């Protein structure tokens, strides 16, 4: 795999440092310019406002008067001294770990399965995955609520009929743990299609011949996966993992709607829900801004290891 590359790198420089080289040096900057411009234009000002808000008392009266009151670090201090913040943070970290783990592992297994099945089954599964993927969260939440309904839910019915126990009129949302377990099932279910399909697309880049050669040589499936498949899909897996961490840490719609506004309590808060309750339901935008910034810091720390590894892989040796 490296012979051709080595030949290229030891080749003497054929072109002197002309203006053409310099112009070519500008290419990457031109390529990233549109993205930077768009992000700066759209997010720059709101972010600046957000940071400003975090240092102000900006509740409903201030919102109406369009003028906040500078309070320095009071918002941050209030959040950091609040036990609810720390409990929520811990709970969200645990929640994220479980969700990301399940999503990545099950998604990769599904992608590997997709490679091995007959075409018609692959199409069947893919259609199923796309149907799952295309369900808006607001809808899948309703379906979940419907399926887990205490009185008429099909889940209770099936479990009881299959003799898994007596689930007659079982309330699947009786405790914070079960509430979050239900949210996990929904989030993982909804996240699997993207991971499965993306990894499947990445698997298409695995050199077919190498896999065949290894199999003919008698290598076991796990060895083939480790030595041939994994290196190729590793960048994609790392990306999916880091993305999943970001998304699952900040998950809002599923948690808020599935648990339901009437049952949201500090004991089942996730970070985004906590932010929503404090900022929007209690109209405290200064506090909400402080929480947003702390959330950003928390997720940055949480994903730091993965991001660093991704950056290392991306190093291009030229």
């Amino acid at each position, binding site marked *: 795999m490296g012979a051709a590359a080595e030949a290229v790198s030891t080749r003497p420089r054929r072109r002197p440092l002309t203006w053409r080289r310099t112009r070519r040096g500008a290419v990457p900057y031109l390529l*990233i310019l549109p993205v930077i411009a768009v992000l700066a234009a759209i997010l720059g000002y709101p972010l600046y406002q957000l940071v400003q808000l975090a240092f102000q008392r900006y509740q409903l009266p201030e919102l109406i008067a369009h003028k906040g009151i500078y309070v320095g670090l009071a918002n941050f201090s209030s959040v950091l001294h609040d036990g609810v913040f720390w409990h929520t943070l811990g709970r969200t970290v645990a929640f994220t770990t479980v969700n990301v783990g399940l999503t990545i592992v099950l998604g990769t297994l599904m992608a590997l399965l997709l490679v091995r099945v007959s075409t018609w089954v692959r199409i*069947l599964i893919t259609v199923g995955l796309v149907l799952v993927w295309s369900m808006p969260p607001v809808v899948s939440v309703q379906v979940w609520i419907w*399926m887990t309904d205490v009185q008429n839910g099909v889940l209770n019915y099936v479990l009881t009929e299959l003799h898994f126990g007596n689930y007659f009129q079982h309330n699947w949302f009786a405790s914070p743990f079960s509430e979050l377990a239900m949210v996990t099932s929904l989030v993982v279910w909804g996240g699997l299609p993207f991971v499965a399909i993306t990894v499947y697309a990445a698997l298409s880049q695995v050199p077919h011949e190498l896999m065949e050669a290894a199999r003919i040589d008698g290598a076991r499936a796990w060895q083939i996966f480790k030595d041939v498949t994994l290196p190729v899909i590793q960048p994609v897996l*790392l990306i999916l993992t880091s*993305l999943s961490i970001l998304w699952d840490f900040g998950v809002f719609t599923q948690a808020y709607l599935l648990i339901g506004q009437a049952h949201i309590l500090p004991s089942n808060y996730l970070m985004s829900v906590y932010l929503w309750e404090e900022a929007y339901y209690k109209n405290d935008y200064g506090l909400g801004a402080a929480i947003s910034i702390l959330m950003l810091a928390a997720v940055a720390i949480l994903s730091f290891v993965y991001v660093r590894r991704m950056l290392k892989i991306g190093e291009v040796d030229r």
Partner: protein
Amino acid sequence: MSRRLPRKLGWNVVGIGVFVVMAFPVFWMISTAFKSNEQINSLTPTWFPLHPTLANFTGAIHKPYFADDLINTAIVVLAAVGIAMVLAFLAAVALAKYRFRGRKLFVVLIIGVQMIPGIGLIIPLYVMLADVPVLGINLVGKLTGLIVVYVSSVLAFSVWTLRGFLLGIPKELEEAAMVDGSTRFGAFVRILLPLVAPGLVATSVFAFITCWNEYIFANLLLQQQGHQTITVWLAEYTGGETYTDWGGLMAASTLIAVPVVIFFLLVQRKIAFGLTTGAVKG
């Protein structure tokens, strides 16, 4: 050959099992859409409605602004995804294939943007869109305003995902193109684009679905009846004080999912296995 057959059969059985488990909620949604109210509320669930009714579907289609909002959503999503994919691909090529000063900074920016909790930005974004600095226009209530928000929300992750796909492409293929004497960027477009097509499609499908299903910003920015997106239209089923019309909600949800499925089926041929075989051999 004969040894392969039973193995494939085993995988097929597992595959069908996976399909059943994953797709059950979807099946439940669709089957509920065809049920009458009595069947929906009965003590024992009806698995396959033997006397399916189309009443829920006709009700959904006739609910005001269904077609308008569907078209609005299509416009917003296609525009946002189109713009985002073009911009993201360019940047991803730069990140994956070039070495330049400030590259790490750009990566930090891309990752950092995705760490911002979106719901924290609701009010600042709204205020900015209501009176855009420099341009002085009001984008609230216009589809463009929502397109702008959606582009910014899928751009970073698209760059990041596409970079990953580009990195996975074996180096020989690029080297082969460079030897041809073409410019570096030209080689990338001619050679890389077909190779990264599966990744491009996967990313665009995800961006499409993310935008299609988004609710919070659509609900915030588009208030006018008939000028909203389909998720806002759908939310009216559960937004009032009266009880939920489950049959209608499920029928409407089924209808909304159809365009997404069609979009995917149109592009799914691009996510094919073994595209690289010919290139490497040659």
